[in-house]
């Protein structure tokens, strides 16, 4: 009787994980859900008295396949958003949460997901000149009192579309887009 309940619970977990895998927006979470799916499948095989298959499923399903997908994700195009604040003397978790709730960053992240790029937000204490010289950032956001300044590379065509997007919508915070050329700074 107990094994039947355990099997049913495992099957439910598998169905839930399969749903989460296709519904989630973040690809890395999808890989993790797939690993959990495989692990519950291998536990189910143990209940069905097939330990050989269970070992193979555990190693391949949640080990090899997850690692393969992770290394594939590594070369998936990541869009790095650098956030530089002028009033950011010491960054705390609360502060980061506050910024993350900021609508502009949220919109940019949604836009990146729509364009099949994985958004990655980096909060840094660098000054704006250092951040612009840092070539890791695709786009740099600077917060100053009352407004937000968005720095993008000249050849970065996503910046144009972002500017268009923000000019269509009207919003409370002021937003201006600044372009720079490679290596020139501002």
């Amino acid at each position, binding site marked *: 009787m107990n094994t039947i309940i355990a099997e049913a619970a495992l099957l439910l977990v598998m169905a839930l994980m399969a749903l989460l895998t296709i519904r989630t927006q973040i690809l890395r979470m999808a890989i993790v859900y797939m690993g959990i799916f495989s692990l519950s499948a291998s536990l189910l095989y143990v209940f069905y008295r097939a330990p050989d298959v269970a*070992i193979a499923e555990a190693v391949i399903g949640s080990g090899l396949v997850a*690692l393969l997908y992770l290394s594939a994700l590594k070369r998936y195009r*990541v869009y790095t958003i650098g956030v530089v604040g002028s009033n950011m003397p010491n960054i705390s978790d609360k502060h980061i949460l506050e910024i993350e709730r900021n609508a502009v960053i949220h919109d940019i992240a949604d836009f990146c997901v729509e364009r099949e790029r994985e958004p990655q937000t980096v909060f840094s204490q660098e000054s704006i000149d250092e951040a612009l010289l840092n070539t890791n950032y695709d786009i740099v956001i600077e917060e100053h009192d009352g407004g937000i300044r968005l720095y993008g590379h000249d050849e970065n065509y996503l910046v144009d579309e972002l500017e268009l997007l923000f000019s269509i919508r009207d919003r409370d915070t002021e937003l201006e887009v600044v372009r720079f050329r490679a290596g020139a700074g501002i």
Partner: protein
Amino acid sequence: MTEKSSIIATMTGLLYPFVVLFGFYIIANGHNSPGGGFQGGSVIASLFIARYLVLPADDFDMDTLHHVEKAFLVLLLLLPLVFIFPGLHLMYEQFNVPYLIAMNFLIGMKVSLGLTIIVFRFGFFREG
């Protein structure tokens, strides 16, 4: 994922010997406990791939690995050819267990090399 993660690097370094030991245990005990060549081989291959995630260095010579894998396949074909097909396993029953262990070992090595080559080639592939 774009940069090296020290958590993953440290944990992989800690687990490295245990995973090797576990893989060889599964291969060597395949004849009287669950497991076998394929399962143990994939455990060892997963180790190499975890190493790729931590340190993506191209210091393996793929061609050598491929030749070794082919050699293992030839051995894998030869062993049953001389032992099973002439019916020796019915005459000399004391060689049955060593035969199983040897076959599991060969299969494990071949599977681990094959999966490692596939994933490494996939990982180092660059367009153009």
